[in-house]
């Protein structure tokens, strides 16, 4: 799952995979603006076939947090 999330983040932001880590967030990645963030959420929901809850949308502001939230959905 981690690799897939990294790949999606890299593709949406247009940033090489090597530059993505669990710590990547809008603060560190210049390309990660609010519009890209929306595309990212849309894309994650599509590829993992999940629907994020209202609170989660606010939480998911780094790759690490995204992994955490997705983990919860997939375990469920």
């Amino acid at each position, binding site marked *: 799952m981690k690799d897939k999330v990294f*790949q*999606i983040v890299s*593709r*949406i932001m*247009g940033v090489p995979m090597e530059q993505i880590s669990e710590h990547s967030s809008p603060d560190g990645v210049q390309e990660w603006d*609010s*519009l890209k963030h*929306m*595309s990212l*959420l*849309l*894309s994650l929901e*599509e*590829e993992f076939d999940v629907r*994020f809850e*209202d609170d989660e*949308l606010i939480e998911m502001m780094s790759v690490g947090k995204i992994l955490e939230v997705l983990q919860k959905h997939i375990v469920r």
Partner: protein
Amino acid sequence: MNFPPYSEIQAFLRAARTEELPGLTISVLRNIVLEPMVPYLGYLAFQMGFNGQVRFGQYDNVYQEAVGGDGELLTRDLDCVMVFLYLEQLSPKLTSQFAGSSEADIRGDVERIRSYIQDVVQGIRRQTDGLVIWHGFEMPLYPGLGVWDGQTESGQSHVIDALNEFLRDALHAVPNCYYLDMNHCVARVGGTHFYDARHWYTAKAPYSRFAMQEMACEEFKFLRPLKGKNKRCIALDCDNTLWGGIVGEDGLLGIQLSKTYPGVSYRAFQQEILNLYHRGVILALCSKNNEADVWEVFEKHPDMVLRKDHIATAQINWQDKATNLRRIAGDLNIGLDSVVFIDDDEFEADFVRQALPEVHVMHLPRTRAADNGTILAACGLFDTLVLSAEDRERGAMYQAEATRKKLKEQAADLESYLRSLEMVLEIRFATSFTIPRIAQLTQKTNQFNLTTRRYNETSIRALVEGGAAEVLVVTLDDKLGDLGLVGVCILRYEQETADIDTLLLSCRALGRGVEDVLIRHILMQAKSHGCCMVAGTYIKTNKSAQVESFYLMHGFNEVSASRDGNERRFHYDFRCGIPAGPGHFKEIRSDVEELPR
């Protein structure tokens, strides 16, 4: 349309060298956030062979950009302007707060929005000639007054309907402006999947990814014909596509085709095909069968919807389908990129995809035959921006052409065949009725076209009204049907010389001696205009080789040529007299005066 995952589309578009493709420039005026839609547009543009370049106006700045003007956003030669006005943003009183709005509130906002629409349409048109796709207002999923809403003219549904009607009229009054019915998009996706309230509240982005996919598909139904990329012909497999089963094995009455299930699925599919025929799509058969078996079904099966005379051409044999599709395109004189091939067989579909990548292949497996009619209706590949009388009659024209071919094969010699057609040819000066078709022919005709100069309606009208030129048109009719306006000549006068600026014939009129009559009438017209010289030009293109010797064969002398030999000039000397025309026409009517004997 099934899109790949969103992130894959983005990776794909970054890797594809889209910048080498011709541009498809789109500017978006909107009062909501729509940026996530861009990859879907880029993907469909790429499939069409274009580099989609989408620019957004500022968020909620539509009026300022359209009316005030924005030279960056709305350039003259833009391909397309998309307008999105989300009604909730324009007027909460007509949307989320409708139940509490007074009649005066409603009237006031309707009036304000109407004049807003007028100003924006006109403002856009002042700045750019591009195609305008205006997304109409959406009906509420749950109308403001509940079930009562639909019973009263003061209900929300009626108010929004009336606004859309006004919008349609406003767009209709301005050239090249189109209404996109958002309610069709909502219906196809389903309202609960169309909107995503989370992104609306957090980012002013109301639409889900499903909505953006569907809207992109709908927008490209306008953009394909804009770029001449709409499909014009369906080539159909027969067994398990037009009917269930295999006619060669199951026999005429053993195939599935009836008014009851399961045969009714195939009837419904045929009905969709017939609907496209009535919209100007040419039908062809491309199947591996004994030919007689197939025609027996067409002629004798009581539940066939399609008839033999709907089929313009057929390749029914045991050869590979790529070869047969090439023949079909050749017979119809269209490019393979105008053809959609439909087959239930995966092998055949893949084979054609590999062999002829320019053909659009639809693989419709028989296991889902009940869905096939809808899939065809949904594909949007055949949409046109107008539906002319000529489009509606195209099927009959191709059928007549097939009969002509047969007559030609049967005739003892060409002369007697041409006589048997009983052709009536008319040469007339252009009028405002014929100007659109003249412009269309200058833009479409590649083969029999001496100079391949392209004109739009405005420039043709300027020539017709200007006085320094004359525009002649040729129409042709024969015993099998009217071929319509098939030829154009533009004569420019300069002192005592008549210069043939444009001389072209539609491919459907070739091989009948029409050009011999036309050149004779051009010469006569120049003479009666007082000219002592007629000049002609041949400009070589990679498609116009067949008319290279046209002027030499019609008594002109070559007087000069460009250094690369691609542009050659010819003169006609009136001292040689004017040649007699061919004798195989039943009648020739002309605005040009016959010469005194």
